């Protein structure tokens, strides 16, 4: 339990670090941040607009006061309002975050469901036809950028074959079937990189586990090969796979931004990209903090899974 408390404490600490960095980023910009945000293509913004933006962002208050207000706002879930339309950032995120989460969850489940068994099978039949084909496919998938795969999926499945809609979103309550159809292509795109990594890692990890002494012990007990594989090889091989999965989550979240853009999936990336283009700083900060928080949360979950898989972590 002490271990768990420490781990959660660490996550909270990291969250504070993230918030502080994001806060400081605006002040680390050389020159006047308000002027910076308003300038586009070298044109000098007018003095009145700069003054107004300084007021809006509270830049004319002492920096510690700004920092305090920022952290207080965060603890209340108040992320400020958009510079573009005054809409509360937190409300915009609350509307869109579930859709992004759904996409991540679907993509991760898909990747794990395909790559874990495939990686195990490839390792058990090392050097066989399946192993070679799957390893080559994984290498190619790892090389295709996520937005390239998404765009090609649209080109082939939507434009040429007309099997699938090119993108969009329908709420589940309105039309569950269409919702899932629209979810499928983005989920595949999100899953691809993760699947390639999990496959490679599982394969390597199972190969390693197969040669361990305790596997020989299990065989010496006379267990069936299936049971040896399930309980003494795969179970142990999952431990390093989990670690890598946690490390991959940052890439996965970044890839989700691109996938949502490609497939018009109305998650967090639409307001994020709009805000980056419009230099809408409060909105960008809100979304970056939310997604980074999500990232830390997923990593915490990964550590818990890791601890559940490996009794040496918590009990020693």
């Amino acid at each position, binding site marked *: 339990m002490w271990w768990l408390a420490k781990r959660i404490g660490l996550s909270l600490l990291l969250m504070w670090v*993230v918030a502080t*960095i994001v806060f400081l*980023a605006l002040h680390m910009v050389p020159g006047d941040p308000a002027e*910076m*945000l308003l*300038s586009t293509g070298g044109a000098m913004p007018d003095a009145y607009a700069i003054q107004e933006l300084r007021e809006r962002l509270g830049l004319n208050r002492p920096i510690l006061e700004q920092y305090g207000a920022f952290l207080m706002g965060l603890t209340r879930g108040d992320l400020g309002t958009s510079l573009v339309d005054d809409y509360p950032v937190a409300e915009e995120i609350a509307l869109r975050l579930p859709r992004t989460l759904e996409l991540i969850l679907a993509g991760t489940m898909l990747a794990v469901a395909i790559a874990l068994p495939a990686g195990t099978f490839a390792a058990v039949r090392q*050097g066989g036809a399946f192993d070679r084909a799957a390893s080559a496919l994984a*290498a190619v998938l790892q*090389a*295709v*950028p996520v*937005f*390239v795969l998404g*765009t*090609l999926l*649209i*080109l082939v499945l939507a434009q*040429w074959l007309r099997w699938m809609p090119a993108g969009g979103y329908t709420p589940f309550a309105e039309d569950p079937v269409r919702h899932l159809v629209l979810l499928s292509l983005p989920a595949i795109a999100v899953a691809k990189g993760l699947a390639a990594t999990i496959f490679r890692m599982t394969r390597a990890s199972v190969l390693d586990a197969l040669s361990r*002494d*305790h596997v*020989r*012990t*299990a*065989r*010496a*007990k*006379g*267990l*069936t*090969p299936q*049971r040896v594989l399930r*309980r*003494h090889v795969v*179970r*142990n091989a999952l431990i390093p796979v989990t670690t890598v999965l946690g490390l991959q*989550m*940052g*890439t996965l*979240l*970044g*890839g989700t*931004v*691109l996938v949502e853009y490609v497939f018009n999936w109305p998650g967090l990336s639409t307001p*994020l*990209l709009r805000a*980056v*283009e419009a*230099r*809408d700083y409060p909105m960008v900060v809100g979304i*970056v903090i939310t*997604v*980074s928080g999500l*990232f*830390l949360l997923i990593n915490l979950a990964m550590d818990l899974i890791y601890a559940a*898989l*490996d*009794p*040496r972590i918590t*009990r*020693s």
Partner: protein
Amino acid sequence: MRRLWFPAAIVGLIVLIAALAPLLPLMDPVRQDVANRLVAYVPGSPMGRDEFGRDVMSRLIWGARSSLAVAFASAAIAAVIGTALGLLGGWFRGLAEVLAIRGADVVLCFPPVLLALLVVTLLGPGTGTLILVLSVLYLPGFIRVSFAEVLSARGQDYVEAVRALGARTPRILLRTVLPNIAGPVLVQVSLAVASAVVLESGLSFLGLGVVPPTPSWGLMIRGARATMEQAPMLLLWPCLALTITILAMNLLCDAVRDVADKRGGGGAPRLRLVDRLLPGLFPAPAAPQPLLDVQGLTVEIAVPGGIIRPVEDLGFRLDAGRTLAIVGESGSGKSMAATAIMGLLPPAARVAAGVARLDGEDLLRMPEAARRKLRGGAMAMVFQDPMSSLNPVHRIGDQVAEAIRAHRDVPPAKASAEAVTLLKRVGIADPERRARAYPHELSGGMRQRVMIAMAIANKPRLLIADEPTTALDVTVQAAILDLLAELRREEGMGLVLITHSLGVVAEVAEDVVVMYAAQVVERGPVAQVFGRPLHPYTRALLAAVPDGDVEPEGIPGVVPRPDRWPPGCRFAPRCAFATVACETPPPLEEVQGQAVRCVRWRELSA
């Protein structure tokens, strides 16, 4: 090395073309020509024109230039700054370490694309912003790698030596440490470049990276999306270029890593499982039938240089209720023989010849399914290292119960209860509580008791113990040996004890097989063999045992490697009595219940 050259050539070619772009006879990549919008081919434009009538081929090549420039620039900046920070942190420790490592951790709190977008919001899109963001993103990798390498380099003798000579810190870091961490840093550079190409294209695709009209693969894909129906090739060319570049870079990264690691060998060659040879025509076993009858057991391993034989023509008999010891130095083939009998040989090894009959049934020619039913049932094995031989992620009670349920149809609760009884039987105090423990929570001796409990779970007729006490303390060793002797007496099983300790043999075994370089050199009842050793090797082993205040005489040299065996007697090079006669392989001769493989045994024992 072949794996390195192919991707290196492709990456080199791409870099070369991109670098030479201004010299190539290409059209202006930004000149628009609205009359030729989206045409598939016009003279001078083999790949056609884009949505503004710009030449696609020219834009592809110039696009490579901007992608690679960003990638190499950011990787180079990150490499220089990151390595410097890591070096300083690792060398000075203290505050420098905290700043470098914690600084790296902070960057890792953010998903990379999000951090990039945050910076783009502040600074506006553009090549400069991209290089800044990407170099920040790759800093942690360099810091960590160089930090770890410096820490290990600091302790190395050559660094200590230069320090002792009074060299100044900057000089040591630059001249001595840096060249030695070049390998890992190079791996990190290749990873950073490959990853930077992906991120740059992604951000450009979102319209937040390279600013139009500068050509970039990400921007080209972005632009071609709108017209993908009329001009799919416009989309496919940059997709293909990007994918091939990244694929080649990834392959190069893997290859560079393998070379830099030097550990990543290609793995053992995969061997075809050749069907067992025809059953040998050995004479029927004489009555009474022994529990275990091994004859002519030969194990082969195919290695790059040919075939080696770690076990050759091994033979012995073991009756129920008796103990047979196999002794010999490391590398003599004792353990390999035991795993062959159990059917647990590593994949690279195979039984080339011989029989091993358990109660008259040949274990070596039996189908794997039948042998599996015997393993852990009628025959069981205890391994050398109880730490690695237990699965670290399962409770020990479960691991023992699993052995029970593999052979008997017992409900789980009953198997668990029986596991506790077994743990008690092997002398584990508080067995109910210990059954719920994980292996790492037990001492070495405890773990070996668990291994034994597991092995005797189904009352085996034959127990093979492979150096069961080498990993343990001396006092624990005696306790484990007592336990094995007691179990053998009470359960009436036959025990094969593999060991290199003659003291152990004298104490617990009735018969002994002495192995040297895969062969039996001497075999017989312990009292007879130890009382009157016929083979010089056995004598040497006995002489090496410390006895009272007599200095033990070590045997000069080591067991030769299996691919370097002498053509004649394998012990001859280390033998004090070797003569010309020893250059032909000696046969194993039977003498009054004892067997010896030495041409000179008659003269020497006289």
